[in-house]
């Protein structure tokens, strides 16, 4: 297919930037706000989310197309997809605890919370809803995770700067972070219309 590469490129750009999961769709804000206090940790979170997102998309896509659609069990979607995501998060947790204990401690509650990170559920849903092929789903989930990581690292960088700023007492903490997020979202609005 000669348009295959172009389609994939479109998917990458639109998933990572134009329809950025956080700044354009406003999905997955909980870990976004919670894990953006330092750039190093935000990169770790981005990697964990990428891992879970890509694997979950592949597994759910296979389950969906080969088991649930042929059997007419579409209504079980939420339950089974969450089951898959929860399993993968547990997997990441076990691996991180063993191999990267520092990151495991820094992530704290936000690691198990990837389970309920709506961004991942949204990607698994959208992947099958858009009728993508397996390759497209893989590219799509990687791009979304990339967009998530980019937004997370950007905000983490801003928050590291913010620590030096004299923020009024009542704006300290999350309020000023949400303001920074809004400004980032406005900046990402510039990507609108890039992909037709």
């Amino acid at each position, binding site marked *: 297919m000669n348009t295959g590469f172009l389609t994939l490129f479109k998917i990458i750009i639109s998933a990572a930037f134009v329809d950025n999961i956080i700044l354009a769709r406003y999905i997955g804000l909980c870990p976004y706000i919670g894990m953006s206090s330092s750039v190093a940790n935000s990169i770790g979170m981005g990697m964990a989310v990428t891992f879970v997102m890509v694997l979950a998309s592949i597994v759910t896509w296979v389950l969906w197309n080969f088991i649930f659609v042929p059997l007419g*069990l579409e209504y*079980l979607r939420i339950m*089974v997809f969450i*089951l898959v995501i929860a*399993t993968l998060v547990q997997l990441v947790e076990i691996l991180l605890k063993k191999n990267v204990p520092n990151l495991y401690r820094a992530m704290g509650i936000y690691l198990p919370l990837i389970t309920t990170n709506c961004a991942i559920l949204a990607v698994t849903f959208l992947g099958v809803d858009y009728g993508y092929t397996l390759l497209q789903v893989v590219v799509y989930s990687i791009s979304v995770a990339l967009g998530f990581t980019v937004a997370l690292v950007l905000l983490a960088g801003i928050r590291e700067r913010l620590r030096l700023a004299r923020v009024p*007492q009542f704006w300290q903490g999350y309020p000023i972070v949400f303001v920074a997020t809004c400004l980032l979202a406005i900046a990402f609005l510039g990507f609108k219309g890039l992909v037709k």
Partner: protein
Amino acid sequence: MNILIPTVLVGALGLAFGLMLSFLAKKFAVPVNPLVQEVERVLPGANCGACGFPGCSGLAEKIASGEAPVNACPAGGPKVWAELTRLLGQEGGNWEVKRAVVLCQGGKGVAQVVAEYSGVASCKAANLLPGSFKGCRFGCLGLGDCVRVCPFSAMHIDPESGLPVVDWEKCTGCGKCVAECPRKILALVPRKEQVTVACVSPDSAREVRKVCARGCIKCQVCVRTCPEGAITFENGKIVISREKCTLCGLCIEKCPTHCIIRVGKTAALLEVRG
């Protein structure tokens, strides 16, 4: 519609995932230090954050690994310290028990109130206003930020004076109120009987007299009165040396504005003359 297929399918999926996870959890198991749990049991469990670590479990890990000292928990006091020393088999060191004290007596009828405040009932908000609603720029605003932040319910606002009072029986010396007060009126002091100046205003006598009947006017009568030479006037502030003070109370009697107070050994309230 056949209910068997979805039931079996979801059940099989769950079973497969569960088996896989339990297998991996065994394979990648990380040995947990049992000492961490024991240390955590000893810690107060208030998760007040006064130690600077994320909650009691965070501190427990650090103490067990030796990265934090056994006296890192200011809230637990000597009891927790002694218990931890025993647990970790360490000897020596000493524990200085601290308590918070309010260094302002400018309550109702004592300090001048220049405006009626109807904003957010928080010292921090009131303190943002230039000069705020009290005549004294350094005095207690009495809106209770320290009371609200106390994790041990050791503080309350005295209805008569409108000033916060620390209950030394409940106070653990964690220092949260000291950090919270926007005017830096609270201080941590060793828990023992002592004499202290209950006024933080650095203003001159004229300014202080204008706004408060119980403020320090820097007359230095106490400096001259003290037979032990324990009281000095340094950088515009009265300083009472805890080492030299014999608690004779002469300065308390002589102070014209009654701003020197005796802080009790165990009692929460301050003994005030006049």
